[in-house]
């Protein structure tokens, strides 16, 4: 096999893996938008907050320790224990559910019936608030995220492709795990939506919340449920991205990677987020490999992802899997 073709195949495989990671972030946006029509600007910060909370709990860190020490003149930082990863994930999920409850009760319940732009503005406020609270709660230092996920080159793929093609492919073990988890997550979310009472209620709210309300579905409960699910997705995304780069405030910027995925896949489709992520991931990596690096000086991925999404938008404004909304007057 020609060397360039082998390289291109490796880039494609890595693009698919990167796409899954983008899709993980995009999923959180889709869940909330689908059920409540809110474009949640805070989704990236939720991933950061979840990852900070998980890392803090695992490390036995005392939340708000700087504040406590400043107010009471104490010197407490850690409880002196480490929490196992699984238990810490469960505790973090409890925090994310509490956050969902608080967001719904304190913010969005008071904004029912407001224009979408008002709701969007509220999520911007929420993003900055959460970033500040995360900082105050867990500090600004960069934390390691080690929940036991494997990282580094997958030797089996490296050796197998070397034997078959004469060039060993690099695939990161973490990306493989992320792909499996993303697949399980999507299957789980789809089954939840299809086969559970709460899932069907969620879909009913997504279709027509007034009709759902009229048949006895509690909007408050469904919205708390949806924000909790988005919190869970944010936690998964936070674990994956945090394992790659350490948990730090730049983690909130991963939302930028999700936007072209949403534009392409549609804001209302879970499969759309996955397919959109894969197209963006492969598209940007291949473009960088074939055109960006050799002819344009590199670093084309960020703008190319948005350009690709724009091209799709021109031909299909609702995105690949989005619902076409026709408003008749």
């Amino acid at each position: 096999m020609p060397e360039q073709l082998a390289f291109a195949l490796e880039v494609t495989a890595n693009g698919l893996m990167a796409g899954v990671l983008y899709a993980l972030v995009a999923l959180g946006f889709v869940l909330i938008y689908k059920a409540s029509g809110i474009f949640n600007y805070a989704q990236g910060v939720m991933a950061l907050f979840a990852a900070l909370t998980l890392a803090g709990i695992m490390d036995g860190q005392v939340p708000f320790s700087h504040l406590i020490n400043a107010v009471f003149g104490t010197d407490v930082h850690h409880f002196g224990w480490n929490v196992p990863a699984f238990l810490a994930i469960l505790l973090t999920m409890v925090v994310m559910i509490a956050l969902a409850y608080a967001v719904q009760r304190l913010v969005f319940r008071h904004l029912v019936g407001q224009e979408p732009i008002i709701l969007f503005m509220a999520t911007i406020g929420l993003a900055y608030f959460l970033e500040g609270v995360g900082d105050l709660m867990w500090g600004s230092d960069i934390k390691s995220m080690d929940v036991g996920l494997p990282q580094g080159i997958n030797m089996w793929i490296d050796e197998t492709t070397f034997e078959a093609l004469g060039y060993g492919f690099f695939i990161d073990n973490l990306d493989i795990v992320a792909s499996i988890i993303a697949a399980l997550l999507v299957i789980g979310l789809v089954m939840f939506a299809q086969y559970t009472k709460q899932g069907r209620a969620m879909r009913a709210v997504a279709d027509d919340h007034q009709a759902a309300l009229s048949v006895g579905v509690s909007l408050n409960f469904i919205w708390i449920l949806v924000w909790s699910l988005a919190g869970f997705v944010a936690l998964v995304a936070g674990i994956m991205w945090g394992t790659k780069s350490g948990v730090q405030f730049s983690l909130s910027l991963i939302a930028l990677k999700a936007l072209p995925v949403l534009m392409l896949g549609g804001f209302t489709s879970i499969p759309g987020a996955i397919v959109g992520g894969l197209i963006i991931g492969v598209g940007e990596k291949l473009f960088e490999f074939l055109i960006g690096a050799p002819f344009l000086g590199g670093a084309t991925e960020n703008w190319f992802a948005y350009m690709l999404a724009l091209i799709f938008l021109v031909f299909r404004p609702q995105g690949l899997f989005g619902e076409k909304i026709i408003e008749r007057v």
Partner: protein
Amino acid sequence: MNMKLKLTTVALGVTLAAGPAMAELVFPSLSYRTGPYAANGIPFADGYADYFTLLNERDGGIGGEPIRMIECETGYNTEKGVECYESTKGEGALVYQPLSTGITYQLIPKATADGIPVHSMGYGRTSAKDGSVFKNIFNYPANYWDGASVAVKHLLDVNGGSLEGKKIALVYHNSAYGKEPIRTLEELSKKHGFELSLLPVDHPGQEQKSQWLQIRREKPDNVIMYGWGVMNQVAIQEAANIRYPMDQFMGIWWSGSENDVRPAGEKANGYKALTFHNVGDDFPVFADIQKFVVDAGKAAGAGDQIGTALYNRGLYAAMLAAEAAKTAQGIHNTKALTPAQMRDGMEALEITEAKMAGLGLPNFGPEFTVSCENHGGNGLVAVSQWDAAADSWSLITGYEQSDQDVLTPLIAEDAAAFAAESGITPGC
């Protein structure tokens, strides 16, 4: 009576306009304790503040004149940085250390017009080294081009004096900062015969798979990185993932803090970083900081950053500011200083080993002198290496001088271009 009042008012106005020496020495600290880069901003700000606190508590200030440090949060945001400058310059600020290349570029014309010196230590506009053009801007003891040159010099040393036919890749933050070393490295590649490949990484640098796959394919002999923030941690992790030898991977000083290597754990062992100051806390001054600052409950932070690379950089920046202030006090025979006098002190600054040892900082930084023509020092840079097991950096070289034959004409060319576009007549 009325005439007397008017005359008094006029006299007072004239005195104020002349810029009287203030009763305190005011040092603004443009810090970033919040936002995406807070993890790096906090230790620097702590080191900067703690050193001034030490001088106040132990020595009663500088030359008996108390220090007042004004901290202003920039969030590493250029607009906020300029706001900080505007809101604090009226307080009698003696020198600004913007701690951001973006803010530095904005402050160069403003501070020059206001007559306030700026010290961009290891960042900012490299050609500010030419003091005949940039009269109020200083960037001693080293700049980005010194860093690139000493990186190549180190590679020459470890490759038996020749880089002929070698491949060196530059992984850089795709910004004005990250692009700084390109021209220097291109010149050095011509001189030493190595092949240079450029790999930009877009901000923030959370995703670098393409760049590291390219490195895996092209197998460069060495990788130099000019990164910042999350870009550093991801690059070191990706290098570990593709099993790139860490001792062939070297970052500029902004890619050389504990924050950058710790997330990769053991796999970061052997990673190298350039530095223009020493590392660790094995210096007498830290005992004084513990006694007069931390134990006295006056530390700027939690006291947990002492001895880290960025804390030491903040402390070093404060030390250089204090020494320049002392020099200015000597030149002008006054304890209280104006910004113009501080500028004179910076321009006459001489850092010797004896002086550093006397400050409790033996071998902490390079010896250098500043002059009207040379605002950048002698371009002395060392290489440090990360020991993951010991969780610490250590210097593996002495302070080596950058290639002045290559850099001097480049600096002169860039400074001349700035002078022409700004209508400045160079001169000392």
